[in-house]
């Protein structure tokens, strides 16, 4: 007679299952990728394609992948090529499985770098070397230097942590010591969720942060006259160089000059260097002024951001603030205009200014720009500028300053919104128009928003990665797939929407204001530039910061360890390699990829490129393949019957219709729109960027390599099958 587990033991096992599911579900994407993604693609409006994607493709394809994986495992196959080879007798099918190898391996290449950031930040909090400043922009500068976002190369601080993380991952994978990690994560992940809730409560209870004065007004009013005049004189001297080089550039007929005109690049670089020197001087001076002040004091001065950090604004600012009396008169005018504008107008101004700043930045830094594109951008820039000037009534005459430019600078300054929790939540959740002046749901007309929403669902719940299909192949025949998949998905969504969606962007808004966020916030870097500012404001912030980033590291490592299993399984079953040999081969491939991500780190270009083409595009294609296989090749009735075997939750039958017709149609329509509207621009952007070109070329090489391996493996499988029959 078998011994039944006691009630207490059963409960303990059930809790263990929930913890394991939580651990599998929580990842970096919940807190780092989703918030920036939503904020950059329509805010609250993004949730519409997001939830539609979750219901029509995320959950259904999750079930599809679990079911196909378990079925493939019954045939003795554990990798995507093998499983598709087993399920579909068409020889072409196995090559679609190549995506199931490329995707997790390529994602691993940049995922471990982000994992290294988490470890690095946790270490810095532990040993106390994390910058401690009430100025939130300090963390942005620190992050950029830490990860090498300021320039390409290998000598970034984060590289040391990458070496540690990469080595640790491979030691664990090589020796197969995943059970220890599993036990650790069953505790660590729920702790992460609790830590996230604590941070959430902290963020939602933050007092309003006052908006400081612009630097040119604040310094003119607070510094002793002699000191301010000396600073102005120094800045003006450098700024004159910027003006001279700009005059030279303006004098060049850009419509006829060759793109590689001798000396042009040098002149442009001189301009950038001079402006960078000005910005550093201003920031150092503001930092020194703000140092003795707490974050809530009204005497604080704002760091220049957005348009106000540009050369044109600096020129005008130096004229406006020539004396405290002129600065005071200007300030009075700005405050009068600000009081006359409603919040909607201010938000529109913020978006206009951000769009214009983005264009100006593109024009300044785009080295391989075509002349036509420059002209198109100039026209757009002028259109936006005219719209801004319409909103702000003419200022009183400021001696020596161009009235139109003053109006422009003033527009950037009047568009300040109170930094409260409500406005922070509003920045995240209010629907944002695609272009200033359009309907609040106009973002839904952009196919890229739908593609990104679907991609975020896939990335977040790891559907279409080739990972779930591999792990599901190791299940027993009577193991559940439906409730397991749904529970993992729903836990993930809780972390993403209820925690990630309420923490990162509102916290960033409260401490940084709207201007740095109104453009396209870096989806992954945001958590590393905003959360430190939150922790700085918290009691025991250093402890919470260390705890938070340690837990993020733990969440990341459970994901990264699972990313290599699909390729390991393929090499084992395709070539009879042992686990250790497979791991060694993968180590070499991923090390090259990691080097590429680290080297082309300026603007995180290689990382973002891989994230889009693999983490969104390829995952999208893979998910489409899987749902078509399930719905049309295996047949939805047979597929649902397979899913029901051992199931603790029976999938509602209407999902059969969804999987067969709605999901593929939804995916193909969005993909078609994206191809029509955005594909060419995406390809153009690759051609215009050296870093993007190399990254995409590398991914293609890896894809071809895997395809060749699949071809060779398939011959072995066919040979083995023939041998079995004879």
């Amino acid at each position, binding site marked *: 007679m078998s011994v039944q587990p006691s009630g207490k033991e059963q409960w303990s096992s059930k809790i263990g*299952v929930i913890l394991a599911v939580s651990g*599998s579900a929580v990842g970096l994407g919940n807190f780092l990728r989703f918030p920036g993604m939503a904020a950059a693609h329509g805010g609250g409006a993004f949730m519409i394609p997001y939830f539609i994607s979750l219901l029509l493709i995320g959950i259904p394809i999750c079930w599809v992948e679990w079911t196909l994986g378990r079925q493939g495992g019954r045939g003795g196959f554990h990798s995507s090529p093998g499983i598709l080879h087993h399920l579909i007798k068409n020889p072409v099918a196995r090559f679609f499985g190549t995506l199931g190898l490329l995707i997790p391996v390529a994602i691993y290449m940049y995922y471990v770098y982000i994992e290294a950031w988490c470890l690095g930040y946790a270490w810095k909090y532990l040993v106390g070397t994390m910058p401690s400043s009430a100025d939130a922009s300090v963390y942005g500068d620190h992050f950029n230097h830490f990860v090498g976002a300021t320039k390409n190369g290998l000598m970034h601080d984060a590289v040391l942590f990458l070496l540690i993380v990469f080595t640790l991952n491979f030691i664990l994978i090589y020796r197969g010591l995943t059970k220890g990690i599993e036990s650790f994560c069953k505790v660590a992940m729920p702790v992460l969720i609790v830590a996230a809730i604590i941070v959430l409560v902290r963020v939602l209870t933050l007092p309003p942060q006052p908006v400081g004065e612009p630097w040119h007004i604040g310094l003119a009013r607070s510094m002793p006259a002699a000191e301010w005049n000396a600073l102005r004189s120094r800045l003006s001297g450098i700024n004159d160089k910027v003006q001279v080089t700009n005059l030279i550039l303006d004098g060049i007929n850009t419509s006829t000059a060759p793109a590689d005109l001798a000396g042009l690049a040098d002149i442009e670089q001189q301009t950038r260097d001079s402006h960078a020197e000005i910005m550093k001087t201003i920031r150092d001076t503001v930092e020194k002024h703000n140092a003795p002040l707490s974050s809530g004091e009204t005497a604080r001065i704002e760091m220049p951001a957005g348009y106000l950090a540009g050369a044109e604004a600096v020129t005008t600012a130096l004229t406006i603030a020539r004396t405290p009396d002129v600065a005071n008169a200007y300030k009075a005018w700005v405050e009068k205009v600000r009081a006359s504008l409603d919040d909607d107008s201010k938000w529109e101004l913020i978006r206009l200014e951000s769009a214009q700043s983005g264009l100006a930045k593109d024009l300044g830094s785009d080295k391989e720009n075509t002349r036509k594109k420059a002209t198109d951008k100039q026209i757009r820039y002028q259109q936006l500028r005219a719209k801004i000037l319409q909103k702000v009534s003419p200022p009183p005459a400021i001696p020596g300053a161009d009235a139109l430019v003053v109006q422009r600078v003033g527009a950037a300054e009047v568009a300040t919104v109170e930094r409260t929790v409500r406005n922070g939540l509003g920045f995240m959740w*209010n629907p944002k128009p695609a272009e200033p002046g359009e309907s609040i749901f106009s973002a839904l007309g952009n196919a890229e928003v739908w593609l990104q929403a679907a991609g975020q669902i896939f990335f977040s719940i790891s559907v279409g990665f080739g990972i779930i299909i591999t792990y599901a192949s190791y299940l027993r025949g009577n193991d559940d797939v439906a409730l397991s998949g*749904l529970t993992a998905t*729903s836990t993930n969504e809780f972390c993403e929407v209820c925690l990630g969606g309420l923490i990162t962007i509102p916290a960033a808004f409260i401490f940084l204001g709207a201007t740095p966020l109104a453009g396209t916030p870096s989806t992954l870097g945001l958590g590393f530039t905003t959360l430190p500012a939150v922790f700085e404001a918290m009691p025991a912030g250093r402890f919470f910061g260390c705890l938070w980033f340690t837990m993020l590291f733990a969440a990341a490592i459970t994901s990264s360890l699972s990313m290599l299993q699909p390729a390991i399984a393929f090499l084992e079953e395709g070539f009879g390699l042992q686990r250790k040999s497979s791991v060694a081969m993968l180590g070499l491939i991923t090390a090259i990829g990691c080097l590429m991500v680290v080297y082309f780190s300026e603007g995180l270009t290689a990382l973002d490129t891989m994230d889009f083409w693999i983490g969104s595009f390829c995952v999208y294609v893979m998910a489409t393949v899987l749902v078509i296989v399930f719905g049309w090749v295996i047949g939805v009735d047979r597929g649902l019957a397979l899913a029901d075997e051992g199931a*603790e939750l029976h999938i509602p039958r209407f999902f059969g219709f969804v999987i067969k017709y709605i999901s593929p149609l939804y995916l193909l329509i969005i993909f078609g729109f994206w191809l029509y509207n955005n594909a060419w621009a995406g390809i153009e952007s690759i051609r215009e960027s050296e870093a993007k070109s190399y990254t995409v070329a590398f991914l293609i090489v890896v894809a071809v390599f895997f395809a060749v391996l699949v071809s060779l493996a398939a011959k072995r499988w066919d040979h083995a099958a023939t041998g079995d029959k004879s």
Partner: protein
Amino acid sequence: MKPIGWVLMLVSCGFVLSLVTYCFWRVLFTPGAQEHLHAPLDIDTGDTDEA
């Protein structure tokens, strides 16, 4: 925060909370569920040193 923003936020969070509560309730109150439910964290791939 505009009314539409509140609606989007509350509906989104409410839906997700309802779904996760339902799933956890099913796991906790379905007899024997723990025998057949797995996550990648606790699935044995059979090829490790610990297998």
